[in-house]
């Protein structure tokens, strides 16, 4: 009995182990399988596209936000999950090992996304005597630096205290505001200024209206009472923002937050809340998005400083902002308070002073002549030479103390003492290096300009339409890429710097906050261009030459050729590093060789690995459908015709002409109605292959050598799957795997009505010749594919090329190109000895393709004959 059964099984295997299914059942099973397969491919395609987008985002330096990262990773995760599900359905639950790998990766990614900066811990109030660089997490950059100036550089600063980040955190937490703030930020459309303003106003209102917890309020008032005891009753204070992360070397956050002067005891608490709220000013929100800071990366600390009764105030740069190697200090001074200098509203006197003793004034520009104040009769705006020397010494001392060029705000009070209000790193660019030749040579006037003059506050050249901004309404209408033209460089306009291509202001100078931010964004800017808002007309195209201090009408190409590429503003920010870290779990591909014993679920280390693995296995499952279901009707048919190689075709769904004799083991190209396969076939056959190119003895030797080194190249050990060239087709889908000689290539395409589903992908690997020759050829392939809009990636001698989301006619042309390349680049690595040969092949290939695309895809392939029925 057993023997009988054995024999029966042996001779009629399908009859016993796999009872033959009825055609309709089989077709249902096949349709289901095919739908899963197609859905898997769609998800697979989504994954590859999202990965490419994420990598490109990191590389390009375009700003991106946490919600971008979270959104992309979520989309990626759901698609990878779908792929695993579809493969599980295709394979009846094989590869269950993928689940634990996937869960592991999602947990790790979740942890990366959840990374939070440490919650600030410490007391709510710190007097200046206790503050220095070490207290930066509690007091913010600005106050930490000021404490350092007072306690270590031993210079005068205003009396006062800091309200710490711990207090701000407690304030927000006690009112449960964090979730609401985040909710509003997440629903904000960052590209829509109106939405940003609305969100900004709503959040600021939320914070300023929330009650301050009693313990913070008591602590502030107690410290204020201490200040009164030293400085006299009812002392007025300035309340200054001092955010963490602000004023660091790479990011200035200049003028992003609020400072309130002359605050008395009655308004102390309310003003404090408003300053904390100013973390969400629109320019601050936009700045953080541009520079890659999350909301939680910035904590709002506040400085409370006794007002300085300033006679004259200003800014010192310990080196010229235009030239970090300059041998002079730049001093700006204006009567009254320093705020007028930095918000750009007042003209200033400017002095360049040599860094060497005895500190001679090298240059001075007096824009605001001395005025006499009627009550006191004091001279207020110009500095005495003693004051200039003392300010210069202070600048050098602070530069020395902090170890980098400094940007210092100062005031001189009525008793003549110099008080330091702020000292921060001068984070500027070496503009002299970027524009070596382009000198401010007024005589070299070749093209007449529209206007000239002013001060270059940020060097560069740009062209765009004029947009004059006087009010918030002008601001909301600001078009992308326009030239921002203003009367005064107020810090508020900073919210436009991510849309503007250049800035022109009638007043202001290099010390204004807006100038600092323009330099940081490497946006060309000229300040002090008188009558700019009158001369320039809204909508007119102008070229701004913020090197030669000129404005030209229209596009001035000779100037624009000197533009420099925009900087990667995101680099090394918290958000940038987070994406970088997340990508290590996503994009690296470790599973490259399906033949390797390590090509298995437990070897997958990234989402890319999982995706690659699933795709490979899904294709195999589809291949084996016929076998598993003993499904002759849909099994492979050999393509007949005059072709140099053998090709098999499997119909997945509607890829063959209706009414075709399903029993025939052979098929003619005319009976194939798969649109993408017909295009590839046209590429394969339109220009006949002339056989292998002549191989020099050296080239041939190289092949023999490689064959002995690499068993995969030995045709004798091909797996059954790759031994033949297979087309898997449906009406709009085609998967072609080719093993011609020593090369392996895979073309896959789906032409959908939906652009998101449509794609062409191409993989190419191997070659018989040595590494150099292979690389020359693969570089040639890359070059040609890129001409045809493919996104190409090279890893060693493996090439991957993709196009997505393009209309069908466009993709059909690319498929013809691939068909051609499959046949014609075959084996040319053997002759790829020199550049001359490379040029020869490049030209021939491009000419051939040109011709190919001019010929119609044949409806009737005349070279073929249906003669295989009996074979």
């Amino acid at each position, binding site marked *: 009995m057993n023997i009988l059964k054995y024999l029966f099984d042996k001779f009629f295997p399908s009859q016993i182990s796999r009872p033959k299914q009825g055609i309709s059942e089989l077709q249902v099973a096949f349709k289901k399988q095919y739908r899963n397969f197609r859905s898997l491919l769609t998800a697979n395609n989504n994954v590859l596209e999202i990965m490419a987008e994420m990598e490109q985002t990191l590389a390009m330096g375009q700003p991106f936000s946490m919600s971008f990262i979270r959104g992309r990773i979520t989309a990626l*995760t*759901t698609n990878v999950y779908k792929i695993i599900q579809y493969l599980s359905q295709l394979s009846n639950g094989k590869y269950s090992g993928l689940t634990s790998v996937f869960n592991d990766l999602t947990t790790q990614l979740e942890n990366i996304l959840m990374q939070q900066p440490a919650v600030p811990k410490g007391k709510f109030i710190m007097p200046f005597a206790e503050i220095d660089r070490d207290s930066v997490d509690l007091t913010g950059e600005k106050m930490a630096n000021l404490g350092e100036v007072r306690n270590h550089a031993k210079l005068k600063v205003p009396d006062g205290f800091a309200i710490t980040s711990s207090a701000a955190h407690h304030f927000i937490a006690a009112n449960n505001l964090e979730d609401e703030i985040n909710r509003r930020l997440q629903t904000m459309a960052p590209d829509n200024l109106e939405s940003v303003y609305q969100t900004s106003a709503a959040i600021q209102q939320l914070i300023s209206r929330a009650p301050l917890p009693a313990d913070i309020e008591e602590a502030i008032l107690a410290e204020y009472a201490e200040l009164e005891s030293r400085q006299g009753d009812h002392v007025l204070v300035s309340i200054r923002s001092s955010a963490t992360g602000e004023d660091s070397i790479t990011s200035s956050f200049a003028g992003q937050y609020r400072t309130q002067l002359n605050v008395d005891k009655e308004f102390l608490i309310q003003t404090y809340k408003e300053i904390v709220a100013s973390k969400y000013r629109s320019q601050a929100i936009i700045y953080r998005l541009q520079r890659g800071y999350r909301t939680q990366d910035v904590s709002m600390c506040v400085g409370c400083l006794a007002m300085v009764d300033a006679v004259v105030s200003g800014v010192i740069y310990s080196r010229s902002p235009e030239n970090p190697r300059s041998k002079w200090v730049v001093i700006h001074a204006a009567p009254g308070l320093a705020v007028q200098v930095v918000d750009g509203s007042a003209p200033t006197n400017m002095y360049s002073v040599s860094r060497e003793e005895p500190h001679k004034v090298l240059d001075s520009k007096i824009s605001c002549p001395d005025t006499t104040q009627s009550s006191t009769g004091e001279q207020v705006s110009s500095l005495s030479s003693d004051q200039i020397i003392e300010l210069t010494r202070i600048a050098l001392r602070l530069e020395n103390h902090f170890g980098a060029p400094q940007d210092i705000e100062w005031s001189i009070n009525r008793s003549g003492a110099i008080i330091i209000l702020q000292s921060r790193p001068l984070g500027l660019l070496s503009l002299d290096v970027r524009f070596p030749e382009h000198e401010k040579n007024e005589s070299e006037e070749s093209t007449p300009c529209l206007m000239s003059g002013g001060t270059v506050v940020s060097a560069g050249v740009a062209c765009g339409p004029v947009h004059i901004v006087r009010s918030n309404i002008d601001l909301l209408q600001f078009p992308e890429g326009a030239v921002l033209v203003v009367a005064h460089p107020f810090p508020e306009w900073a919210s436009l710097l991510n849309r503007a291509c250049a800035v022109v202001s009638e007043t202001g100078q290099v010390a204004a906050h807006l100038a600092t931010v323009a330099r940081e964004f490497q946006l060309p800017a000229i300040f002090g261009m008188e009558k700019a808002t009158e001369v320039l007309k809204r909508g007119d195209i102008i070229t701004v030459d913020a090197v030669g201090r000129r404005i030209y009408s229209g596009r001035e190409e000779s100037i624009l050729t000197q533009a420099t590429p925009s900087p990667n503003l995101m680099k090394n920010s918290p958000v940038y590093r987070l994406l970088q870290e997340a990508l290590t779990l996503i994009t690296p591909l470790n599973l490259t060789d399906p033949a390797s014993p390590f090509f298995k679920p437990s070897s997958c280390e990234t989402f890319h690995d999982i995706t690659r693995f699933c795709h490979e296995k899904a294709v195999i499952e589809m291949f084996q459908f016929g076998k598993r279901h003993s499904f002759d009707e849909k099994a492979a048919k050999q393509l007949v015709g005059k072709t140099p190689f053998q090709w098999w075709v499997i119909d997945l769904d509607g890829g063959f002409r209706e009414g075709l004799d399903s029993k025939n083991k052979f098929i003619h190209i005319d009976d194939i109605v798969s649109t993408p396969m017909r295009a590839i076939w046209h590429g394969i056959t339109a220009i006949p292959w002339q056989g292998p190119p002549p191989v020099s003895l050296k080239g041939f030797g190289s092949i023999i050598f490689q064959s002995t080194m690499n068993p995969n190249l030995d045709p004798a050990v091909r797996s059954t799957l790759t031994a033949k060239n297979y087309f898997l087709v449906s009406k709009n889908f085609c998967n072609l795997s080719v093993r011609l000689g020593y090369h392996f290539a895979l073309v896959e395409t789906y032409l959908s009505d*939906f652009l998101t589903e449509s794609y062409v992908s191409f993989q190419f690997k191997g070659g018989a010749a040595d590494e150099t020759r292979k690389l020359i050829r693969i570089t040639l392939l890359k070059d040609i594919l890129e001409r045809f809009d493919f996104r190409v990636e090279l890893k060693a001698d493996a090439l991957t090329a993709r196009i997505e989301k393009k209309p069908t006619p466009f993709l059909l042309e690319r498929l013809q190109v691939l068909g051609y390349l499959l046949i014609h680049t075959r084996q040319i690595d053997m002759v790829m000895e020199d550049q001359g040969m490379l040029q020869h092949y490049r030209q021939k290939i491009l000419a051939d393709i040109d011709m190919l695309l001019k010929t119609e895809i044949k409806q009737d392939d005349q070279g073929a004959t249906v003669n295989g029925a009996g074979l």
Partner: protein
Amino acid sequence: MVQDYKILLVDDEPDFLETNRKRLMRRGYSVETAASCSEAISKLETGWPNVVVLDVMLPDMDGIACLKKIKKKWPAMTVLMLTGHASMQAGLKGIAHGAADYCMKPIELDELIEKIRIAHDETSSLHGR
């Protein structure tokens, strides 16, 4: 093809419902809206919708629970999840419980329409319609 979709938008934000209802209808789709899960269920009981676009945050229950409820009663219904807070875990739960896709707000109208079409294609072919 366009007229086949009877879309039920479920979201707690009236602005979102109104603008997207108008936009989709301008493109020739039939659209109804619901501001809560219970309202969505009663609209589904009329048998009218064939696509549900479901927000993850609803006033009466969370979107995943609502999805489960819908899928239990109408397993063949095409449901797309839409959210303002992208969350991997919510996304995975959504797909595991039968959502066809999990999309992030803000979403372009064309993208939403294409996702609805693909999702509807996939779900209906799986359920043999």
